[in-house]
């Protein structure tokens, strides 16, 4: 399930998206730049805490979303940890393959762990934004950051019509299945082809109708709308400063201890 559903329920939903974006971005950048496992883990806890306590999400929701990228992160880190070494290297574990030794040494393990933890920190920071800010507010924020209007409008339209397209695709699929579609692997390929072409055709026709409807409401080339007033993003700047200070504190502590 998408994060949007949860973002709509967040008490921070009406807060200025740029403020929330700033918290996420600053926390991510500091977490990446510090390059230490402890800072990464700490950032994850801190941003998780913010998302739960301030952003009004359940621990379960946050945990659920953190699990999603875990497999990717694990595989990514593993390829950094396991490497080929010359035969007489001192490794933690290793097996000889050909005339090389494949395994894990202390430095590699440390680096992999640090990468993994930093990635967790960045992912958690981004979840703070994603779980408190619906897509429509994010795009409104991008508009204010002077991202080209064409790009923002495309993003908004794609986001809006993804739902009607998937609804339509679901209905076609049910109709196909009810007439014994997808019965064999070969049939499935045919049926998916028909489904894709039908969805495309429908989207094309709906595009025409949407355009007519826009024109009838005075569209002259810009999808300009007025969003509801946002609450001030000021608390976000305090939050960002707090998170940043804590991250740097942990960074200094880790440096001092090691």
């Amino acid at each position, binding site marked *: 399930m998408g994060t*949007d559903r949860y973002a*709509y329920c967040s008490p921070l*939903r*009406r807060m200025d998206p740029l403020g929330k974006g700033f918290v996420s971005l600053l926390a991510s950048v500091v977490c990446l730049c510090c390059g230490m496992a402890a800072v990464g883990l700490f950032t994850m806890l801190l941003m998780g805490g913010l998302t739960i306590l301030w952003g009004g999400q359940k621990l379960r929701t946050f945990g659920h979303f953190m699990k999603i990228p875990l497999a990717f992160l694990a595989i990514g880190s593993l390829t950094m940890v396991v490497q080929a070494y010359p035969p007489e290297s001192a490794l933690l574990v290793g097996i000889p393959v050909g005339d090389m030794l494949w395994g894990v040494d202390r430095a590699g393990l440390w680096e992999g762990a640090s990468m993994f933890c930093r990635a967790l920190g960045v992912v958690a920071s981004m979840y703070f934004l994603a779980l408190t800010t*619906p*897509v*429509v507010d994010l795009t*409104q924020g991008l508009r204010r950051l002077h991202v080209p209007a064409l790009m923002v409008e495309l993003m*908004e*339209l794609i*986001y*809006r019509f993804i*739902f*009607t397209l998937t609804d339509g695709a679901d209905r076609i699929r049910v109709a196909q299945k009810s007439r014994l579609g997808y019965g064999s692997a070969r049939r499935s390929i045919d049926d998916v082809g028909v489904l894709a072409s039908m969805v495309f055709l429908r989207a094309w026709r*709906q595009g025409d*109708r*949407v355009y*007519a*409807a*826009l*024109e*009838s*409401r*005075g*569209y*002259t080339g810009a*999808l*300009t*709308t*007025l*969003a*509801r007033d946002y609450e001030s993003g000021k608390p976000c700047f305090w939050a960002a400063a707090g998170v940043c200070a804590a991250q740097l504190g942990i960074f200094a502590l880790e440096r001092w201890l090691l």
Partner: protein
Amino acid sequence: MEGTEYAIEARDLTYAYEDGTLALDGVNLNARRGKVTGILGGNGAGKSTLFLNLNGVLRPKRGTVLVDGAPVRYDKKGLMDLRRRVGIVFQDPDDQLFSADVYRDISFGPVNLGLGAEEVRRRVAWAMERTGVTALRDKPTHALSYGQKKRVAIAGVLAMEPQVVILDEPTAGLDPQGVGEIMRLITELRDGLGITFLIATHDMDIVPLYCDRAYLLSGGKVTGEGTVEELLTQPELLRENHLRLPRIAHLMEILRDVDGLDADRSAATISAARREIKRILGTE
């Protein structure tokens, strides 16, 4: 005085598609101010094309559209003025609601009119209040029910403060309760704000309840017109146009033609039929 009695008028309106097919052929019709005018016709009768012509999205090959008695000008300013005064609510709200945010979608029309932020906010709040969607303002469009989307679509048009609102099949896809709610909303807006409504429908049962006058459209031509009572006394004409009598009027027709009772066949609503039956039974 002509020009003040009719909010919108079409004279000899003719429209052809690019391949030359005539979609509208010399259509003459008018909608009285503050009334609900029905446009009745089967599928493919040309209703949607007519509406897009009335709002300037399509430009007629021949003929004129008059709003408030003045012919429409097709320059940029004239078109914007036309779209401000004549709004269309499309059949499928998913075609009309382009924004995933209810509030922003409703604000689209007023923003296009070049109004200031304060005025846009006032109008959006007002339109949401009138259509009963204020509670939905923080919801994403895709989370709304079909009936709620329809109301939001009406709010989006209402926020432009039009004089004429055209509704294409307003009851299509709604459950019976939804039909009642939408039609009550239309009556409220007509009575409260004096808005003129044009309603395309083939749902014959709502016609005697909500329409003041009606036109029959078939093959791009007007094939009949009159008050609803007048049209309902011509069942053959309705059937030729792929329509039928409302159920209650049909019952009256059977009572009259099969059972030989002296029933008034223009009695097409429950209350009219009740009066008529009591009259026949001699209890009134």
